[in-house]
């Protein structure tokens, strides 16, 4: 990145110095000041220009008044993970502007609100001053509304500077305001004002450039939570109990709007679903279990504090063998932690949640598309295994916009597991709720209301024999616990398998999961390109693990496990997996190395590469 020669005061850089479809732009503003529309319109315009792009909202735990940053990354190579360096800053927050400018690399560009006078701060940046107030006053006579459209001006300025396709921009904008045509007109006027001003006063001097591509044909752009909600919709969820918590609330809120749109009986307008906003997470979990016991596809979504509160109920679900889907959209720390920052911190907690012995199925979507497909899978697995199933998303995946393939329609019927109705009971003769008839550890169940004398049973935790009768007999207890263990082993082959995303040269392997995926892909390319390190990459999609994980570790000398938490939780789960199932090379466990990122920001490729190289340099 030969930026040193760039003369920031002169004209546009030579083509060779340009960052074409390969830069990140950050809008620094104040929470609640209404820049979200401008940012989304910008994002969508770039998307519609066929350029790979992502948008990340870095917001405070606050409704209005604290600093917030929105970062758009356009990248021709589909590197849509976070990039640490900002190439183009839109500085609108007086409070952070100095710090924001100070953090830039030489050669970066700054578009700022004229009164901030940022151009005095540094001489190695490209500055563009824009008189927002004056421009907005001209287009918006009604003073009250000015603040609302003010931010749209920078879309217009950027249209000129970055070479946005104006037609696409207008299209994106009108689409955004499709239900409010007057607002659309007003905003479009603001865009035009910005564009005109820039055309007249701001000759292009920075390096950021957009050029149309064809990469997004047929693609969609979606937040992980919206995709997960669609997964629930098409999984046929019928009972939802939830309690609001950032960053999970929008999952249920999207789901509610989809259900209202698509799950009313066409003839009667009656709902084929029930959603309850519960009084807290203990209650949401109870609702999920009660409904799952009754035979419904039930779910909740929450974040770490909610998972903590659900511990007792989910533990009961494991022992009483009740299906239910639990989305955990992870965030940082305890309640008064950093609730609007991202993390992968609940991996270990979810895997064994509850007092006593317990093991849970945990699904790990790595893309927005997988938020959808793994939601579908979660409902099938929960009912097939009669157990709580976790889907672990995180704030980055869940609340940011990602490009994805169109969501595929699920094929085949809902897999509802071993449920016996009256006819089934007739057929099999004897029914024992907790008997391992098929040798896979999964028993048969009946649903309340079944009209057959053999159907009813009494549900409790673990103190029962295989006929669901109360028992404290040691042998019966052990037999039941061992069967539960067998059931979990059966799940190994049935949960989504890991994906071998890249094959490597054999020496170094990388394991990652969840929202680390895109940064990992980019890092692999960096390592190959810049350091000749050709690492393989296995992306985990579920716990329990299977043989593929073991084989992957066995094929490499050093295996880096990438994760977004302090305690290397996934690494630990892998260590235990390898240690518990010996066979193959004796030193498998010691081949594992840890790459952690836990500052609350989404992980970026550069940090990964640096850390891997640092460790590669060690013996």
């Amino acid at each position, binding site marked *: 990145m030969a930026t040193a020669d760039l003369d920031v005061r002169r004209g546009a850089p030579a083509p060779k110095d340009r960052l074409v479809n390969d830069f990140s732009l950050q809008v620094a503003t104040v929470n609640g000041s209404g820049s979200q529309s401008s940012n989304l319109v910008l994002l969508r315009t770039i998307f519609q220009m066929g350029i790979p792009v992502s948008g990340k909202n870095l917001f405070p735990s606050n409704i209005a008044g604290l600093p917030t940053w929105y970062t758009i990354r356009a990248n021709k190579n589909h590197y849509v993970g976070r990039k640490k360096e900002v190439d183009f800053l839109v500085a609108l927050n007086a409070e952070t502007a100095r710090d924001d400018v100070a953090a830039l690399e030489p050669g970066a560009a700054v578009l700022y609100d004229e009164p901030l006078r940022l151009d005095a701060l540094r001489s190695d940046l490209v500055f563009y001053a824009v008189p927002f107030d004056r421009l907005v006053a001209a287009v918006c006579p009604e003073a009250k509304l000015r603040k609302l459209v003010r931010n749209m001006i920078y879309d217009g300025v950027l249209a000129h500077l970055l070479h946005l396709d104006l037609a696409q921009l207008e299209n994106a904008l009108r689409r955004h305001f499709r239900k409010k045509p007057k607002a659309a007109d007003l905003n479009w006027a603001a865009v035009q004002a910005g564009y005109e001003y820039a055309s007249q006063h701001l000759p292009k001097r920075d390096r950021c450039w957009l050029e149309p591509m064809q990469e997004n044909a*047929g*693609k*969609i*752009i979606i937040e992980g939570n919206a995709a997960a909600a*669609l997964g629930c919709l*098409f*999984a*046929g969820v*019928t*009972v939802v*109990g939830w309690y609001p918590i950032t960053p999970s609330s929008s999952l249920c809120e999207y789901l509610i709007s989809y259900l209202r749109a*698509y*799950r009313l*009986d066409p003839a*009667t*307008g*009656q*709902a*084929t*679903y*029930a959603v*309850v906003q*519960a*009084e*807290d997470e*203990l*209650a*949401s979990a*109870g*609702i*999920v*279990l*009660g*409904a*799952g*016991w*009754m*035979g*419904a596809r*039930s779910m909740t979504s929450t974040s770490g504090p909610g998972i903590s509160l659900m511990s*007792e*109920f989910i533990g009961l679900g494991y022992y*009483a063998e009740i299906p239910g889907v639990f989305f955990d959209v992870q965030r940082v720390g305890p309640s008064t932690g950093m609730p609007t920052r991202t993390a992968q911190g609940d991996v270990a907690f979810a895997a064994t949640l509850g007092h006593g012995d317990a093991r849970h199925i945990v699904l790990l979507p790595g893309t927005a598309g997988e938020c959808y497909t793994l939601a579908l899978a979660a409902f099938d697995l929960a009912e097939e295994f009669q157990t709580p199933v976790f889907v672990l998303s995180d704030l980055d995946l869940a609340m940011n916009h990602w490009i994805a393939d*169109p*969501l595929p*329609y699920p094929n085949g*019927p*809902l897999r509802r597991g071993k449920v016996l109705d009256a006819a089934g009971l007739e057929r099999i003769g004897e029914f024992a709720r907790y008997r391992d008839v098929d040798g896979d550890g999964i028993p048969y169940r009946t*649903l*309340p*209301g*079944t*009209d057959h004398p053999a*159907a*009813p*049973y*009494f*549900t*409790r935790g673990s103190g029962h024999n295989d006929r669901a009768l*109360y028992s404290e007999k040691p042998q019966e207890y052990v037999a039941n616990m061992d069967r539960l263990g067998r059931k979990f082993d059966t799940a190994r082959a049935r949960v989504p398998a890991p994906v071998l995303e890249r094959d490597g040269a054999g020496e170094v392997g990388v394991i990652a999961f969840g929202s680390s995926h895109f940064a990992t892909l980019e890092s692999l390319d960096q390592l190959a390109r810049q350091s000749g390190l050709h690492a393989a990459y296995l992306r985990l999609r579920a716990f329990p693990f299977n043989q593929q994980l073991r084989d992957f570790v066995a094929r490499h000398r050093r295996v880096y496990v990438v994760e977004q938490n302090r305690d290397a939780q996934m690494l630990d789960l892998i260590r235990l997996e390898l240690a518990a199932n010996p066979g193959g090379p004796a030193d498998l466990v010691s081949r594992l190395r840890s790459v952690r990122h836990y500052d609350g920001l989404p992980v970026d490729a550069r940090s990964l590469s640096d850390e891997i190289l640092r460790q590669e340099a060690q013996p």
Partner: protein
Amino acid sequence: MPDRLNHIGLAPADYRGSKTTLCAGCGHNAISERIIDACFELGLQPHRVVKLSGIGCSSKSPAYFLSRSFGFNSVHGRMPSVATGALLANRTLRAIGVSGDGDTASIGIGQFIHLMRRNLPLVYIVEDNGVYGLTKGQFSATADEGQKLKSGVVNQLPALDLCAMAIESGATFVARSFSGDKRQLTQVLKAALSHQGVAMLDIISPCVTFNDQPESTKSYQYVKQHESPVHDVDFIPYFNDITVDYEPGAVTDVRLHDGSHLRLRKLDRDYDPTDRRSALGLLSNAHGGEEVLTGVFYLAPEKPDFLAGLNLVPEPLATLPDDRVRPPQSVLERINASLA
């Protein structure tokens, strides 16, 4: 002698459960009997009933009635949410929830209030003995102010009045009865089972083992004098069930196994239970008094229940066929297009 049959052709035995493992003479057993009677007399289909409970001696009792119904003994104090999920999944079943005063008034008061507020069509029975039976006799939040534990600890806190709480929170059927009042309890249970909305029954149900008044010199205490000072109660004598039978408007004194007395007053026949304000007034007059008022305090039969408010299809959500719960491919295509 063959059992008498009800109008759906079932005998009382068809409503029984497994043998109780509660103490002989425990009020909870009498309540189980009354539930059996009520269900028999109403001619409920056992398989159309589900039983839910929390944790405690009381919460065990669903195993001791209706063994032809499904049951769920869940976690301490949080049965209301389980019942909510269950009824959302299948609104066509009748649900009976059994809880204790510890399960409801101590750990469970939060879910209790929200259950009442939601007016979920559940018969919610509190088998109320003022103590934690199963964990050996600590106070619950319905214990009388001034009551004393064996250890000498005195309850300095006012008792929560679950009936008043229920009405305050939005319940639509609120009653109090006594485990030994066969006639009233069966009637109240039948009315509750016929109510469309939440029916909260606070049933005084003395714990013969732990709810003892140390100052009493009678029966049970007498035995206690001769018992050894082990940490737990060691010897549990056998008691017969207590029964009472008295008229509306009347007062009766019940002698409990520990020799103490309980004074019950039955609401007058002409009491009008549909006035929320006077129900609350009545209870606030009675609060902390010497008498326990019994009867149906409040009834709001017209208020739509929680499930009605959700405008659900009439069939159980749990077993709707695939094509009614998974929108067709065209819907997904439309959604994809809107995101493209």
